[in-house]
């Protein structure tokens, strides 16, 4: 058991984001949608968010994620990079993703 880190994590291209252990991404058959479950809240990520979250497995670096997403959406890496890093920083601050 260790004390919580007292420094806010900041996203970089080398970060390998992973979903926090208290969250779970799963398909809800009743509502026919993907849900991210956390202790008090349920999030309903849209398609783009879902594609990012699926890559948050601790193996993909942010740089690799951007390259894969750029391929997938036939977009410019430089164009989508701020959106991806912004999303990851926000989800890290919300305590859903570890950077």
């Amino acid at each position, binding site marked *: *058991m*260790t*004390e*919580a*880190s*007292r*420094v*806010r*994590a900041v996203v970089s291209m080398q970060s390998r984001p992973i979903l*926090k*252990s*208290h969250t*779970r991404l*799963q398909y*809800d058959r*009743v*509502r026919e949608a993907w*849900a991210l*479950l*956390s*202790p*008090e809240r*349920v999030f309903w990520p849209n398609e783009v968010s879902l594609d990012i979250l699926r890559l948050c497995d601790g193996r993909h670096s942010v740089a690799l994620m951007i390259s894969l997403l750029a391929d997938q959406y036939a977009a410019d890496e430089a164009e989508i990079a701020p959106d991806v890093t912004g999303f990851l920083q926000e989800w*890290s*601050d*919300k*305590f859903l993703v570890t950077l």
Partner: protein
Amino acid sequence: MNEPVLPPIGMLAELTHRCPLQCAYCSNPVELLKANREMDTAGWLSLFEQAADLGVLQVHLSGGEPTLRPDLEELIACLARRGVYTNLITAGVGIADGRIEAWAEAGLDHIQLSFQGAFAATTEKIGNSRGAHEKKLETARRVRAAGLPLTINAPIHRHNMEEVPDFIELALSLGAERLEIANVQYAGWALLNRKALMPEREAVERQVQIVEEAQERLRGIMTIDFVTPDYFAIYPKPCMGGWARDAFMVAPDGTVLPCHAAGTIKSLHFERFGDWSLSRIWHESSAFNAFRGTSWMQEPCRSCERQEIDWGGCRCQAMAIAGDAAATDPACIKSPLHARMGALINEAISTKTADTTPDAFTYRRIGRVTEPRAFQNGSI
């Protein structure tokens, strides 16, 4: 009801009313159920299966003290099998060796551990339980060692509001991901003890400043959820996210209610699981339909632009203070009875003794009326 009824997302399961602590701020009903009224294992398992079928994604296992149920492992395993997110809400005293690991093994997702004070003396005084604080610290360590995520829950009132900065430090030192600073809501035992629990306005204002500063300072380090005190509010909270809108609760005997204090609305009738299926209760129970949506609303809610933000606030608070469950929650500044909230604060503060010890507490106990001696001795 014109709008379609959507499936529920969350369920609060009060597995038992038994508890080793006797906190005066407890929101359980004053008439607590004894162990022999509790639904059995098969009943809870069947309820959880039906809840998952209906669309429930999260179950909060609570009480009383849910860990007093020896079948907790089995209940968790059933929910985990169905992909339901499980959150165990515990006081964390008297948990036998190996059980926390067994819950983790069964698939428990998260533990929420309450602290009545940031220091031992406060925790013991509020819960009326010696040694409770040390046991909670030990539970927190065992939760983290078992690899389970941890939320610290701090129920706040007059007797521990000054400890808010210490609660924040405590939660950080225990490695918690989340801290709930939850000002007590006056239902059940807390309503009975309202005068003894009510904080002073200046203390509330200081608290708000401290928590908001900490939320900013600890962004990305620890999440702090802040439940502000209703009596000092301008607008009401969307209680339960709206009556029978996306959550419900189940009492230890299997009675299904839209919220944990709904039993105080005596005009409503609640069904028990087993007599009716969960789906039928959710869709057809007259109690669930009584305040669903907005069509039941009176003025000022009826023409208010906030009606789908707060859904009229808390029905039980309207019952307790306005004497009418369909009235606007008096926490709302638009309620004609809003001034009564301020009057209740002033009344509580003016009767407060110079001594700050909570001598005036009516501690939470099952069956406060003593049973005949012959029954207690089993000698009839």
